[in-house]
Structure formats: C-alpha cells, structure tokens
C-alpha cells in the first residue's frame, strides 16, 4: 500500500452564470495516482490542466465553488475526503504538508520567522516554547539558512525570495511530515537560486525518508529531480510512469508534443507539433479530451480512451498507447 493513494478524483467548479444557467467546470476528471515513500513524483501540464487543483483537493484546501464530487484520497490508509477541519488538521500540517506558490504571501507578515516556526509546532503537539524555538533554529540551519538564530528574529518582509522559500520549506518540515507537496517551488526564483532550492528539497526528502510531489510546468525540473511523473491534460492524468521511461518512450501524443516542444529537441529535430488552445472545461468534448489537438486522432477517439499499461508502472490514457513512438519527435516533422 502506498503512502498516498488518489483514486478517481473528480473536482468540479459549480456556479451559475449571469443568465442563471448552471455551469460546471470539470477541473479534475478522475485523477488517480500513487506516491510511495522515497519517491518524488512530478506533476506536469499546461495552465488549467488541474495541477494545483489536484494538490488543493488532496490537502482539503478547496474553496467554493470548487468541490470534490467523487473519488478518494487516502493518506497512510486514512480517507481524507469528507473529513472535518479538526480531523484533517491532525494530518495536514504534521504528516502531510504543502508549500504553496508565491513564498512571500505564504508567510504571516506580522509574525517573526521564529514565532511562526514555534506556532507551527505548538499547533500540533505540546512542546515548550524554548524547545520549539531550538527546533525551529535547527530547522532553519538544516534548510541552509546561515546565521539561523539571527534569522529566527527576522520579519518575513526582510527575507529575499530564496530565503522566504527556504523558510517555507522549514515550516513545512518542522513537524517531521511523511510527505511534502510543493506547488511550483521554484517559479519566480532566479535560475541560480532555483538550483539551490531543488537540491535542498531532494536532499531533505532522501535524508528523512519522505515522499514528495512536485507540481511544475518545467520539464527540466521533472527530468532531474523526480523519480516518477504524471502528465496532466484537461483534468486527467494522460500519462504516468518512471521519468526516464516517459521521456524516452512517451506513449500519449500530448506527452510527445510536450517533450518535442522543448528548445533542445527543437534544436535537434526542428519544430514539431504546434499546441492549440486549452479545452474549455465547461464544455469538454466526449471521449478523448486531447482529440481536437491530436495529430493521431481517429474515429475511435470519440470514446473515452482506456488507461493502458505499457511497461513497468508506465501507463498512458490513449487508444494508441501500445504503439511505441520510441523517438517522440520522430512522430512529427517540423
């Protein structure tokens, strides 16, 4: 049994438009995946594919009009969907934590770093303020903040972007979680700082025997920091598998298009398939959602494609998943 098991998760946005017609945006359409101890799973996809929504659904942080209409999220064999805030908080923030986007807005502007670290501990267990303070300072040092004692007394607004991100990681790890979800942990950081943060994350996950899920739109991050990856499109995971396998033998045309659109591949193979506009979540086509943009589309694509296993833990949601396109860019020519 895996640490985190997400099964057939459907999250919808239900609202009424100005003409009083019911509108349902299908944000997630049956998302299933697992994360095991020691793994770093990367979730990639374009804007609106449902990456962040997946994380929010898992963490129970959805705000109306978004809500889970079907499916289950099991963490360490405990069902999280439908739990009240009180029970959820026993897991959230201690065993399962999240680093949300935009580090600066994620810190309480009116509490010093140290106080926030102490508070995060005292919320979940009884620990003396002194002990919590010491643990906090140690954690700051662990995440690579020099002069940790002094930084404990800093206000959030005095931190640089990279520092703030480190403090957030410290906050997420302070209660010794078993799994960490990082939503675009390096977006907005400079390239040279990005490397520092990602290395830190990987080391921490390995040292602490944790699991992690990284949400990103950067295939480079997935390629070098994740063990497994899930490719999302229009609220579904269209392909998942070990990173190396997916990169070298992508079976879903969308994954193939993604990989072939990276500048490196373009430089080697020329321009591949051109991406179209994202599908309208209020009016998703029946069958394969990628149909309209797919060069491989056929009549059969009007029926929902099955999730087909194509290798060790490698699955793709495509009618043609069995056809190996060992060289993704070869399927198209620029």
């Amino acid at each position, binding site marked *: 049994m895996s640490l985190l098991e997400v099964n057939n998760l459907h999250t919808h946005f239900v609202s009424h438009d100005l003409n009083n017609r019911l509108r349902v945006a299908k944000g997630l359409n049956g998302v299933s995946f697992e994360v095991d101890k020691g793994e770093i799973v990367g979730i990639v996809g374009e804007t609106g594919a449902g990456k962040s929504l997946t994380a929010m659904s898992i963490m129970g942080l959805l705000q109306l009009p978004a809500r889970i209409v079907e499916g289950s999220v099991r963490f360490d064999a405990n069902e999280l969907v439908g739990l009240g805030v009180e029970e959820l908080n026993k897991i959230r923030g201690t065993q399962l934590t999240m680093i949300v986007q935009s580090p600066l807005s994620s810190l309480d502007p009116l509490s010093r770093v140290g106080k926030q670290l102490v508070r995060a501990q005292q919320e979940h267990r009884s620990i003396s303020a002194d002990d919590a303070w010491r643990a906090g300072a140690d954690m700051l040092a662990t995440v690579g903040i020099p002069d940790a004692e002094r930084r404990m007394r800093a206000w959030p607004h005095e931190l640089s972007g990279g520092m703030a991100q480190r403090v957030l990681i410290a906050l997420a790890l302070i209660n010794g979680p078993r799994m960490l979800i990082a939503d675009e942990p390096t977006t907005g950081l400079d390239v040279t700082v990005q490397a520092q943060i990602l*290395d830190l994350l990987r080391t921490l996950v390995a040292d602490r025997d944790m699991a992690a899920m990284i949400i990103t739109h950067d295939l480079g991050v997935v390629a070098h920091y994740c063990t497994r990856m899930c490719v999302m499109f229009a609220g579904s995971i269209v392909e998942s598998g070990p990173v190396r396998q997916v990169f070298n033998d992508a079976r879903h045309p969308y994954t193939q298009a993604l990989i072939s659109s990276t500048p490196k591949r373009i430089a080697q193979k020329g321009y591949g398939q051109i991406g179209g506009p994202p599908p309208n979540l209020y009016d998703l086509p029946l069958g394969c959602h990628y149909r309209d943009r797919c060069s491989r589309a056929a009549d059969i694509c009007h029926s929902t494609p099955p999730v087909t296993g194509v290798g060790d833990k490698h699955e793709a949601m495509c009618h043609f998943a069995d056809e190996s396109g060992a060289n993704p860019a070869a399927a198209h020519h620029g």
Partner: protein
Amino acid sequence: MAEPILQVRNLVKHFPGNRPGETIHAVNGVSFDLIPGQTLGLVGESGSGKSTIGRCVVRLLRPTSGKIQFGAHDITTIGEGQMRPLRKEIQIVFQDPYSALNPRMRAGNLIGELVKLHSDLGPQARRERVAALAARVHLNADLLTRFPNELSGGQLQRVCIARALATNPKVIVLDEPTSSLDLSVRAGILELLGELQRETGVAMLFISHDLETVQLVSHRILVLYLGFVIEDGPANAVFAKPSHPYSQALLSADLPPDPDVVLDRQILQGEVPGPVNLPPGCAFAPRCPLARDECTGARPPLVGVGENHHAACVRIADGTNDIRAAQIAAAGDIHKKFQDQFVRRTT
C-alpha cells in the same frame, strides 16, 4: 555583415530608489548593435536590467545617459512627439499577453489600431490589412471579433505579434515573449518568429531568462549581471565555451528536459544583490568562487576570448577563469569522487 540598424552605446539607466537619496542602477553602460535579419539574445536573472534595456530601446523609458542610434536618428532623448512617427519602425512584444492587450478592445481592432495610427488606409483597406496580418501569424479570422479574455495565451501572443508586425518595423524587441506561455504553445510562437524574421529581415532583440530558448533563437548573445555586460559573443560560442565564471554558473544551472543528460553543476552561493549599492569592481565578485583581491578593485573590461566573443573577467588573462577546473584543482580527487557518487545517486 550588414550595417547595424540600431546601435546602442554605453546605455545607462538609473531609477530613483524607494528611499530618498537611493539610486537603482538598473543598466550601467551597455553597448550592442542590432543587425537586420539577426536576433540578439539578452540573458540574465532578475535585476540584470534586461527588460530595462528593452524599454529604453523602444523609448518607453528615457535613458539616463548613453546613446541609441536608430538608422539616421538619434532617439536617445527625443520627445514623445518626435518619437511617435518612428514608433512604427521599432516595435515591442511583451512577456504577458494577457495584460499587454486592452481588455476592452476586440482582437481585430487591437491589430487595426496600429494600421490606423500609422497609415491613411480607409476602413475597408484596413480590414483587409488586418485579415492579412492575422493570416500571417496563423490566427483564425473568426477570432478577430473576440475580446482578449475569450482567447488563449498563445492566441493572444499571436495578436501581439500581429500588432508588432502591422507597420513593417525594422526592429522588434521581444521581452520574454514565451515565458508566460505553456510549453507546447511556446514552440509555435518561436517557430512563427523565426519564420517572420526570415521573410522580413527584421532585427530582433530577444530578452529572456530561459537559456535554452535564447540559444535556440539567437545569433548573438549578451549575458548581463546587475546591469553590466559580462560576456557577449555568437550564441554557439557562448554556449559552447562560456568564459565568465557567472556565465558558466548560469549555464550549468540550466536543467535540460532530458533525464539522460548528466548534470555537472556549479551552484552559486547566495542571491543576486539588489542594484542599489553596486559592489565595487566586478559586480559578480561577491558571489564568484574565483574572486581575487583585484576583482574588487577596478571594473574588469571586456576582453576577447574568441572570434567576436568577449568576456569581462580578470582571470581570462592567465586562463584561470574556469570554475570547474578551479574546483577540481582545489579539491583534488576526493572532490571528484564525491561528485561522481552524487551524480550516480541522483540519476
């Protein structure tokens, strides 16, 4: 080589800081040429002044000093009234197409606006011109009646490019034109830009922090750090043999989207300092693993390291400017062994 269409010499741009008496030194003496039919890539992290340079070139900002020569015109400090007729020659495409278009105007009118401002075409001729432009950027004609919020990011960026092309400009500044777009859409935009350059021979200034994209589209590259050019040269030469320690670190921090590439990274300590108080001497010295005492003295000049390839580092003279070589030499075999181990564990 063709005559440059735009020459920038010693461009300096300062802004008043947040506190009284403070000065933000955004750009500190940058020179370059734009050649028709070629793309110059500006690379740098936040605070490197790359966007400021772009805005100075299209005269959205007035440079503090230096010179910008466009053809026969010195546009460095001319007023908006004199600049306006020249605007049709120098266009810009911004990073975020969602905010770069007036949300209250339809796509067709947004493109038509430029035609209207810079030509005497009647309404009918204008419509035809807009349709032709839309076709050229591969934008479906039925999208022209839509408002920006009814279009996707890729479509919006095509509208922006159509706007930039509407007046047949000689120079286009592209300020991170693909950063806010999804990967699969990015490629299409890059392809379109290349296609247009081949057709029209327009000179492009391509600003980006994404090294791979810059490498893909640029003929020449300028690497910026804290408003200084620390390296320039032909794109391939710079990527093949980065000479400034910062260029080396920057290039090594790149994550190629390919798990089979073995990373060999020189991770820098700390972050880019704010451009308020510039470090003395070489701006990169405080973070440079190779910094020597003399680095905090005078600012190092750009010296030739190859054909048309220059870098500003004092260590170039004695050939000790390679971070990796220096590290290996310093740490010896132990370091190398550790590094091998690390690489094995992570891949």
